[in-house]
């Protein structure tokens, strides 16, 4: 069970994150100011901290030092509306593990948290499993049972995204943003998402795997237990 501290001054956004992550069985605590965050960090230990840069009582980047001194093992993911490159670099230099720009998809946030977690916890955590499907995030190999799937990089990313966010509806927008990043005026052409998903399902099927991915009418896709 992961314990997560959400430092975010926008109550609604923080609650969104909390709701979403709670379903994954994470324990989330919220705080809305830098002072409150300092207090919590001094008293408790967290596996991961979601840190907003723009806090009412100070720049979140300054909190990074606090977090690092309290618990060097703690993972920090910066969530910021400031898509300023220097903030990003500064944050990562100061020891943040990742940087996510608002507005983000909650599924994306979850995938990032899992990715950080996998990087930090090496004991077998580089294997992500779902029934007979297993993904090795180090070698980028996807297997169905023992059979190696011949996936492209994008297909691997897509499958990993599904596995991490299993039993959740993933919108096409969320998948597109995950696969192609936030290029300005980018190719939000959902045909591409459709194509990728179709190819992936075909490959899993032909490797003898079960097709766990289903289409959710109007919305997107879902990887679920059959």
């Amino acid at each position, binding site marked *: 069970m992961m314990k997560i501290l959400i430092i975010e001054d926008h109550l609604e956004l923080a609650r969104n994150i909390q709701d979403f992550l709670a379903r994954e069985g994470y324990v989330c605590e919220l705080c809305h100011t830098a002072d409150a965050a300092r207090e919590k960090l001094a008293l408790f230990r967290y596996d991961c901290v979601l840190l907003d840069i723009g806090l009412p009582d100070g720049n979140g980047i300054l909190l990074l030092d606090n977090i690092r001194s309290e618990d060097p093992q703690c993972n920090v993911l910066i969530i910021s509306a400031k898509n300023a490159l220097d903030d990003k670099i500064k944050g990562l230099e100061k020891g943040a593990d990742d940087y996510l720009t608002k507005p983000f998809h909650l599924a994306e946030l979850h995938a990032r948290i899992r990715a950080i977690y996998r990087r930090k916890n090496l004991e077998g955590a580089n294997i992500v499993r779902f029934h007979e499907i297993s993904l090795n995030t180090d070698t980028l190999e996807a297997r169905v049972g023992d059979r190696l799937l011949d996936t492209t990089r994008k297909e691997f990313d897509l499958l990993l995204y599904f596995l991490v966010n299993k039993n959740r509806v993933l*919108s096409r*927008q969320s998948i597109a943003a995950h696969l192609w990043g936030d290029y*300005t005026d980018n190719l*939000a052409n959902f045909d591409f998402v459709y194509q990728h998903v179709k190819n992936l399902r075909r490959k899993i099927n032909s490797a003898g795997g079960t097709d766990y991915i289903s289409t959710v009418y109007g919305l997107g896709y879902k990887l679920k237990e059959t």
Partner: protein
Amino acid sequence: MRLNNKFTGWYLLVMLVVLLIGGAIVYYEIQWKIGSVEVARHQRLNDLIAQQIRTGGNYADHPTRKRATVTLIPEDSVPANLSSFYTRGTGWNPEYQANEYRLVVTSFYQINGRTYRVSTYSFIPSFGQLLPGVVDSFKWILLLLLVLVGISGRLISKYILAPFKHTLRVIESFELKQKQTLRLPPTRTDEFRQLNSFLQRMTDKALEDYQSLKEFTENASHELQTPTAIIRGKLELLMESDIRDDQAVLIAEMQNALEKLSRIHSSLTLLTKLENYEYQDQEPICFSQSAKEALDSFEELIEMKALILTTRMEKDVFLPMPSSLADLLLNNLVSNAIRHNQPGGMINVQLSRAGLVISNTGMPPETPTDELFERFKKGNPGSDSIGIGLAIVRQICDLHGFPIVYEFRDGRHILAVSFIQSVAASKLLQNVDRSLYTEA
């Protein structure tokens, strides 16, 4: 032309005119003075001769008679109202046996009831004889002035224009980004003081505006992205609840609109950032490498649309631009070429030191191609894009002084970026045309 040269030039021109007029005045003044002194002398001489006649006696060999003619004339042949007159002209000089310029003064006297005409003459310098002297001296004056004005113009302007030059240097090194107010030296010249205070006010205002614009951009970005993120999160949570199909469609439509909103917003923020971006000297980056990476990242999309990609890329094309902007430029151009293509169409990318040309097949645009560089202009109004990609492309090109052109011809969209400021991008098209058709 430099300011002091201009001043000196005009000054010399004025001097030349003044010297010409002055020369004429001097010449005539001298001529007149010589004449009037000589005339007065001869009138006194004539008076002296008349005095001698009055006293009687023989003065024939007297020195006064050397150049004098005394004639007895009838009383009625004396011109009316005239006691004396003079004439000038060439006359025979018996001493030199030559014609010379001669001044003759003739006076009339009534002595003892008889009328005498006394005329004496002397030789004076003629117009022609005086002229070379005048011209010569003015030539020397002109030469001297030329040299002095030339030298002093240079020295004085250096001294007077020093504050101006300093101001120029300060402005040249002024940059909004450094947020430093302009520091100009005090000067006693009114005009320069005016200029300096104007510049000071202007740059202060610009700094202020820049700062508030930057703050606005950052605030807008922050304040708008957060609510968008909240809505998006709520929709995602709603999506997972037990919903009916028709509700799902509603949610999907909301998500689409939201996606568009957030993309428009982040694009506009980016554009604003680019517009306020100051071009600074930049380490050259390998543009060929960036182009290759951009094409690689779109490989799957190109395959999916069954497009045929042909490239001809020179290696080691280096450009002084930030790699993030190079990526943005390439991603926008390549993704446009893919998106506005037709299934089974082609994309051709040509990169050289002269520039980049990307052409692709596609439907003819419904708006003139020039206008497509403007914000929210779309070639096909029904399309999914927000129509800001090309505005960003042009902004990046403008920043680096790259001319850019977009043409549609023979069923192909051709976008050319010239890497050389002085070479129009359309020039690239001429070279490309040939290779395009030989390859296709």
